[in-house]
C-alpha cells in the first residue's frame, strides 16, 4: 500500500464532543448544547422555574419530531410543575435521584455521565433534564414521533400467513418477532454501529437453539465494522459476508416477522438494523432462497409442487436464452425439423446473430425493468406501453428481433421475477449473461462448462462457516426433507444440522403423524353403537 494513503487516514474522531464533565451553570450547559448542535432549531430547550425561594431553573432539552410530545407534557413538565416543594428538595446534591425517584413519572429514566452520552441520548429521542446549579444530567425515555405503521410487506408477499411486514423502527420490528416467539430464551443484543449515524443494530437469536460459535462469529464481525454510517441492512450484509467475490447472497433479507421467527427456530441469527424493514438472517444457504413462507403454511404436496416449479424457474431463468442461442447457432440438429423451419423463417430477416439478438432483448428488458422500479407512478403506464411496444411488437415488425426470441426473453424475465428472493433473482439474472456468452462461444459445451464452474463456485461458498449448498453438498439426508421436496410437518424431526446448535436438534416429538380417531362414534353419535352407515 503506498504510504500517501496512510497519511490521508483521518484521525480518530472522538473529539466531536467534549468529554469533560458538565458545568454547574445551566446557561453554560445549554450554551454548549446549542453550540454543539449548531443552533439547530429542532433542538428544543424548555426552561421551567420551580420553587419560590430559592427559585430553581430546570431545563428540558429534546429534539422535536423524534420525541413523544404528549409524554413530555404529561410526565415531565406537568410532574415537575405540580411538585410544589421541589425547589427545597433540589438543593441537595442527590437532586437527580430525587427527580428520578420522586418526580418524573416516565418509564425509563437514567442519569447521564458525560457529554458523549448526553448527545447520544438526545439524538435518539430522549429528553435531557438539566438543573441549574447541579453538574449532572438526567435522560428520560420519551422516544416517539411519527412512524410508518405496520403494513403488508412490499417485497415478500404471501397468500397465506400473517400479513404484517417490518417497519423502519427497530423497536417495532423486534417486538413483532417477540409476539411470535413468546419465550425468555429469545435473546436480543444491541449495539450502535456507524460513527456518525450511531445506528442501532440488534442481533436476535433463540438461546439454546442457535449455535454459540455462529453467534460469537456474528458478534465479532459486527464489532469489526468501523464505518461512519449504516443506513440499511445491506451495508451490514456487505461488511459481514464470508466471501465478497460472488454474486450470490450469503445472508437472507427478510421483510416479514414470520420468516424471521421461522429461521430463528432453525437456529439462525437475525440482525435488525434501525431505519430499515429488512432484517438480515445468517447463515443462509442456497436452497433457502427458493423457499417461501407459503410453502410451510400449505400442505406438503402443494408445497412440493411449488418447490419443483421453482426449480424449473431457476433452470429457465438461468439457462433459457443460453439454450436457445446454443441450439440455434451450434446444434440445429437438436431442434425438431418443423420447429427449426419456423425459427429459421423468423430469423430470415433478422440482421443480427442470435447472440446479439438475445443480448439486445435482454438489455432492453433490463432497462425497462430498471425504469419500472424508479419511475414515478404518474408516468408508469406510459413506460409500460412503450416497453410493451418496444420489446414486443415493434422490435419484431422492424425485423430487429425474431418473435421466438421475444418469447424466450419474456419467459426468462417472468421466471426471474418468480424467484421468491429478490436478491437471488438478480444474481441469477447477472449470471445468465455469462451463460449466454458461453453458449454463443461454445454451444452446449460452453453451457456445461459454465454449469460446472457455477456448481464448483456454489460449493465453495460459505455463510458464517456453513456450506452454502448444504444440505445438498455436503449431503445431509436428515435435512433433505426441507429442500426441493417439502415433507409434511410431522416428518420434520430435526433442525438443520449445520446451522442449529448440536445439543438441541430435535424439534418435535415422535409420532406426530395425525390419524383419524379409532372410534368413529367420537365424531357422530348416531354411529356410536355400531360402525354402520344407516341413520
Amino acid at each position, binding site marked *: 500500500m503506498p504510504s500517501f494513503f496512510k497519511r490521508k487516514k483521518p484521525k480518530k474522531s472522538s473529539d466531536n464532543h467534549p468529554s469533560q464533565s458538565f458545568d454547574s451553570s445551566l446557561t453554560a450547559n445549554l450554551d454548549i448544547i446549542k453550540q454543539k448542535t449548531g443552533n439547530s432549531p429542532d433542538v428544543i430547550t424548555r426552561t421551567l422555574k420551580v420553587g419560590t425561594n430559592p427559585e430553581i431553573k430546570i431545563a428540558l432539552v429534546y429534539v422535536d419530531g423524534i420525541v413523544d410530545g404528549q409524554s413530555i407534557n404529561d410526565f415531565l413538565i406537568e410532574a415537575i410543575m405540580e411538585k410544589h416543594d421541589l425547589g427545597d428538595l433540589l438543593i441537595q446534591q442527590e437532586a437527580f435521584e430525587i427527580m428520578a425517584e420522586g418526580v418524573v413519572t416516565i418509564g425509563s429514566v437514567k442519569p447521564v455521565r458525560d457529554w458523549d452520552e448526553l448527545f447520544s441520548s438526545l439524538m435518539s429521542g430522549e429528553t435531557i433534564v438539566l438543573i441549574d446549579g447541579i453538574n449532572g444530567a438526567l435522560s428520560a425515555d420519551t422516544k416517539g414521533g411519527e412512524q410508518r405503521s405496520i403494513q403488508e410487506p412490499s417485497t415478500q408477499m404471501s397468500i397465506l400467513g400473517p400479513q404484517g411486514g417490518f417497519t423502519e423502527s427497530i423497536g417495532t420490528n423486534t417486538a413483532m418477532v417477540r409476539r411470535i416467539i413468546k419465550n425468555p430464551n429469545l435473546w436480543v443484543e444491541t449495539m450502535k454501529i456507524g460513527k456518525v449515524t450511531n445506528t442501532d443494530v440488534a442481533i436476535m437469536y433463540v438461546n439454546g437453539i442457535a449455535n454459540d460459535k455462529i453467534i460469537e462469529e456474528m458478534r465479532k464481525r459486527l464489532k469489526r465494522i468501523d464505518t461512519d454510517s449504516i443506513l440499511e441492512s445491506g451495508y451490514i450484509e456487505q461488511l459481514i459476508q464470508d466471501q465478497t467475490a460472488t454474486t450470490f447472497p450469503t445472508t437472507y433479507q427478510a421483510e416479514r416477522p414470520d420468516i424471521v421467527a421461522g429461521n430463528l427456530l432453525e437456529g439462525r441469527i437475525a440482525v435488525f438494523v434501525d431505519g430499515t424493514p429488512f432484517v438480515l438472517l445468517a447463515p443462509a444457504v442456497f436452497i433457502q432462497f427458493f423457499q417461501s413462507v407459503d410453502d410451510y403454511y400449505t400442505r406438503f404436496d402443494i408445497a412440493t409442487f411449488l418447490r419443483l416449479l421453482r426449480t424449473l424457474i431457476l433452470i429457465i431463468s438461468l439457462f433459457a436464452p443460453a439454450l436457445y442461442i446454443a441450439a*440455434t*447457432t*451450434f446444434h*440445429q*440438429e437438436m431442434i425438431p*425439423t418443423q420447429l*427449426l*423451419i*419456423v*425459427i*429459421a*423463417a*423468423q*430469423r*430470415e*430477416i*433478422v440482421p443480427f*446473430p*442470435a447472440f446479439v439478438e438475445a443480448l439486445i432483448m435482454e438489455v432492453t428488458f433490463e432497462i425497462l425493468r430498471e425504469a419500472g422500479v424508479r419511475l414515478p407512478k404518474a408516468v408508469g403506464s406510459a413506460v409500460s406501453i412503450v416497453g410493451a411496444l418496444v420489446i414486443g411488437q415493434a422490435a*419484431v*415488425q422492424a*425485423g430487429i428481433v425474431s*418473435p421466438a426470441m421475444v418469447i424466450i426473453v419474456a419467459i426468462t424475465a417472468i421466471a426471474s421475477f418468480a424467484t421468491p428472493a429478490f436478491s437471488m433473482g438478480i444474481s441469477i439474472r447477472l449470471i445468465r449473461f455469462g451463460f449466454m456468452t458461453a453458449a*454463443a*462461444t*461454445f*454451444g452446449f459445451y460452453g453451457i456445461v462448462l459454465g454449469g460446472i464452474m457455477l456448481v464448483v463456485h456454489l460449493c465453495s461458498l460459505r455463510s458464517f462457516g456453513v456450506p452454502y449448498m448444504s444440505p445438498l453438498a455436503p449431503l445431509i439426508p436428515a435435512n433433505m426433507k426441507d429442500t426441493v421436496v417439502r415433507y409434511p410437518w410431522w416428518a420434520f424431526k430435526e433442525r438443520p444440522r449445520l446451522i442449529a446448535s448440536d445439543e438441541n436438534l430435535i424439534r418435535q416429538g415422535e409420532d406426530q403423524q395425525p390419524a383419524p380417531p379409532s372410534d368413529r362414534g367420537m365424531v357422530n353419535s348416531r354411529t356410536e353403537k355400531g360402525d354402520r352407515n344407516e341413520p
Partner: protein
Amino acid sequence: MSRRLFLLFFIMISAVLLSGCWSQRELTNLAIVSALGIDKNEKGEYVGTFQIVNPGYVAGGLQGGAGGQSAPVTVRKSTGDNMMEMSRRLSTHLSRKQYFAHTNLLVIGEDLAKEEGILTILDVLDRDPEFRTTASVVIAQNGTAEDVLKALSPIDKIPANYVLKTMKYTEERWGENIDVALHEVITDLISPGKEPVITGFRFTGDGEQAEKLEKLQNTTPEALLQADGLAIIKDGKLTGWLDGETAKGAVWVLDKIQNTAIIVNWKEKKAAIAYEVIRQQTNVSAHIKNNTPSISIHIRAEGDIGEVTAPVDLTDEQTLLKIEKKVEQEIKKQVDNSIRHVQKEKADIFGFGEAVHRSDPAAWKKWKHEWNDLYFPELQVNMTVDAFVRRSGLRNKSYLSEVENNH
C-alpha cells in the same frame, strides 16, 4: 499475487477468444436440406438432387413470410463422380451451406438402383456425422429421384414431409408399403440372411405440372406422388417389385402390419365383409430336417368387422367362426402369393435366412453363400393363420337383414 491473477485471467480470456466459434452456424447461413435424391446420368456421374427448404415460405403468416407466393422448397442439382464431389460442387450455385441434419428422406432413382445398385452411395451417408441414418429411404419407381423431389405437394407444404407422412400412414393403415430407415437398409445389405425391401414412390400425372405452385391451387392436383410397391433389392441392386396384395403379403411376413382391411366374400356376394385388423403377431421359425431347411410362419390376427354389405347374422357364433376361417384363407392366400413371387426373384427379403441362422448356426455357415440362389427359392414354407373377430363395431346384426326380412 495480482500479477498471477492477471496472468490467470489473461489465459482464461485468450482460451475463450482464440478457440473462437469454429462450429458456429447462424440459421440464416444454412440451407436446410429436407430430402436428398440420387440418380446417375449418361456420363456415369452421380446426379444429386437437393430439396432445400425455403423457411420464409413454409412458415407463412409471419413477418416477411410471404407464405404461398413462392415455392416452399427449392430444388438444386449437382453432379460428381462420387457423392462427396457432387455434394460439394453444389456450393457453386447455392448461397448457403447445405445442412443435412434434418434430411429425413433419401430418394434413389430406379435406374441407379437397377444398374449400379445402392451399395456404393450409402457409405458417405453412413459416415457423415451430420446426415442421420434414421432418414427414410424410398426408390423412385419408373422415374428419377429428381422427379420425385421436384413435385410439390398439397396440405404438407414440404414435399419431403408429404412423402414421409404418406409412407408412415399408409404403413399404419393399409400395409402395402413400409417405412425403411437408412440404417435398416444398411443392416439388411450386409446380412447374408436377409435382403432389404424399400418402398417405391411413383409419379401419377404430368411431371411438368407438379413443379408449378399454381397447380396446387386446384382441388385435384394434376400430378401427385404416390406410394406404390416394394422394391426387392438383391446384392444391392433392384431386381423387382412387389405390388398390391403381394406387397401386403410380404409386409405380413415381415411382421410390420399394424392395421389393414381384409376383404372376404360371403356366399355369392363378392367383397361382402371387410375385416379390420387391429393387432397381429407373426412368428417366423426355421426347422432343419434331413439337412434341408424349412420355414414355418404363424400369423395371429385380431380384428373387428368393419363393414358388412350382405345380410350376415353377426350374432351367430357359427357365422363368426366362418368369417374367421375366410379371413384366415385370405391372409394365407396373400402371403402364399407373395412368398412364391419372391422365391422366383431369388432374394430373401423375409429374413428366412436369419431364422435358419438362429436355429442352426452351424448349418447356416454352409448354406449362407448360396442361400439366395440355391436354398431360398426351394424353401418349404408351412403357414398357420389364426384370425379372431373381437368386435363388430357399434352394430351386431346389420340393418340389411331387416331389409331382407321385409321383402
